[in-house]
């Protein structure tokens, strides 16, 4: 055995651990994050001279099944051209055999970090509306996210919202075309793979069980997902996660530790409850419907989740027409005072 110096050990560690970008247009800049399936690096696209994020299969977790999954994630992202979804630029295989894809490098903050600076409920709800829009768009394209949570949402410096980490995404209705684009991802290839949350700008809190069922992220996954009834998942499963996300946005606490009744206004609590109903049939049928109810709340209109009484309607009416109400009230008070004065 030859003597290996400390320098040689350092070089070997680096050579074995770093992706080999030779032959590509990218130049490695720095490590960003690591997840269960991939590692995200900041790199420079030497042709377009812009910074991109490279998501590269983790050498430790590398396997044909995981490579197929990473490619699948890239192809799903490629279908989702929307301002609220991180765009993918390129996909391929490195010289060292690892699969990678290049995406926009999002210079922002995770939603959970960003919220520390937003205290206004309307502002939080407007931000939430953008998340719902992106998810609704994906649903319209037949794709479920299945791992929506604050750590998977980035907020850019100009308030742009990006839904990240589509590694667990699923096609709602598999078309023949889908099967072709998903490569040869057969169960035989992937059954023994351990899959965890793909690396992104996220924590690795998603939990995956053995034998084909996903636990997702506790607190954000619907009951049917937690049970592993994957055939029951549809867009209402993402609606549940969006409801949990709304609860988090409004309370600042993870859904498992807060309840909709705690400190919220009744309509907002009702929206959260409806979105997070245990029975999918009792939830909003779509992310758009959920977003519409939140928008109605913002506009002081009645929300579908909360049938209000006379007092509720009156209160909302007053709240909505506050200035006019105050003017009329002032007029009436003055009128009464004048009457009282002149009667004497």
């Amino acid at each position, binding site marked *: 055995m*030859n003597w290996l110096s400390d*320098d040689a*050990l350092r070089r070997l*560690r680096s050579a*074995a651990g770093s992706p080999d970008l030779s032959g590509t247009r990218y130049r490695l800049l720095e490590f960003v994050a690591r997840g269960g399936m991939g590692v995200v690096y900041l790199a420079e696209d030497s042709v377009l001279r812009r910074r991109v994020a490279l998501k590269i299969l983790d050498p430790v977790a590398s396997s044909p099944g995981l490579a197929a999954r990473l490619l699948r994630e890239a192809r799903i992202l490629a279908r989702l051209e929307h301002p609220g979804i991180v765009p993918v630029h390129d996909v391929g295989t490195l010289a*060292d055999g690892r699969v990678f894809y290049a995406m926009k490098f999002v210079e922002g903050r995770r939603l959970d970090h960003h919220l520390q600076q937003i205290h206004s409920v309307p502002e939080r709800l407007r931000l939430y509306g953008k998340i719902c829009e992106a998810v609704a768009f994906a649903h319209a394209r037949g794709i479920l996210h299945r791992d929506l949570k604050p750590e998977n949402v980035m907020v850019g410096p100009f308030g742009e919202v990006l839904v990240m980490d589509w590694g667990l995404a*699923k096609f709602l209705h598999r078309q023949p075309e889908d099967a072709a684009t998903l490569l040869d991802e057969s*169960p035989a290839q992937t059954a023994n793979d351990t899959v965890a949350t793909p690396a992104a700008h996220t924590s690795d809190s998603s939990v995956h069980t*053995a034998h084909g069922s996903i636990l997702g992220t506790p607190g954000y996954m619907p009951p049917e997902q937690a049970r592993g009834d994957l055939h029951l998942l549809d867009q209402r499963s993402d609606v549940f996660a969006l409801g949990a996300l709304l609860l988090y946005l409004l309370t600042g606490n993870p859904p498992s530790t807060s309840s909709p009744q705690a400190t919220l206004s009744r309509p907002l609590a009702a929206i959260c409850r409806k979105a997070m109903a245990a029975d999918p049939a009792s939830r909003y049928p779509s992310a758009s419907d959920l977003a519409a109810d939140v928008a109605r709340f913002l506009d002081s209109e009645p929300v579908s989740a909360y049938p209000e009484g006379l007092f509720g309607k009156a209160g909302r009416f007053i709240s909505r027409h506050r200035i006019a109400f105050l003017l009329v009230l002032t007029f009436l008070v003055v009128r009464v005072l004048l009457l009282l004065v002149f009667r004497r």
Partner: protein
Amino acid sequence: MPDDTAIGGTADRFPQTRWSAIVAVRSDNATDRARGLEAIAASYWKPVYKYIRLRWNRSSEDAKDLTQEFFSRLIEKGFLNGYDPAKARLRTFLRVCIDGLVQNEDKSARRLKRGGDAQILSLDFESAEGELARLDPPAPGSLGDFFEQEWVRSLFGLAVDALRADCKSRGKSVHFRLFELYDLNDDSASHLTYDDLARQFDLAPTDVTNYLAFARREFRRIALEKLREMTASDDEFRREARSLFGFDPGDPA
């Protein structure tokens, strides 16, 4: 649906096809135990020897005896039966075992018991002594790091040897030679560029890139295989692999 069954997998089960020396050395089968011991000793004997020499300030002869004794007891006393990867890393566990052995061992009784200088393993202690002479003495408080670093040196050394043999058997000796010159060469004054190597071996620079990528990929594969042998579970393997090849956040990759 295929994309459903693809998710998850047998995360908690150590694949049966992947052989573990740690599991083997705990086996009831004598052949398996011997094979497991051989693999563990191949990776760990140098770190153990060097650690005893420096941590316990023992003479070369004493350290040789204690190293042999340590691996002998690994089987006889079932040292590894008490190893739980959830509680400590294997290296930490082994260091504690070494410390216990050295503290409790009575030198004369040991020699009497083992019949003098009888050896159970054929180990090249001279090479380990030579390596010790090339190392800067570690600070007394960093002997744990020293043991770790020596283990990495040992593991990578075995992987490089295996890569050399593998390349030779596959007719890819040039690949290994390039790897040796570029990645293992310690002479910074004569550090070669890809273009230098291309000229020296009469290759196109892109060939140098490809040959080096091949050698590094194979090195990683072999090193991970050897690492896997030294772990008892898939979780432990992943932790160790990340530690071995991982990066600290913020470090240039």
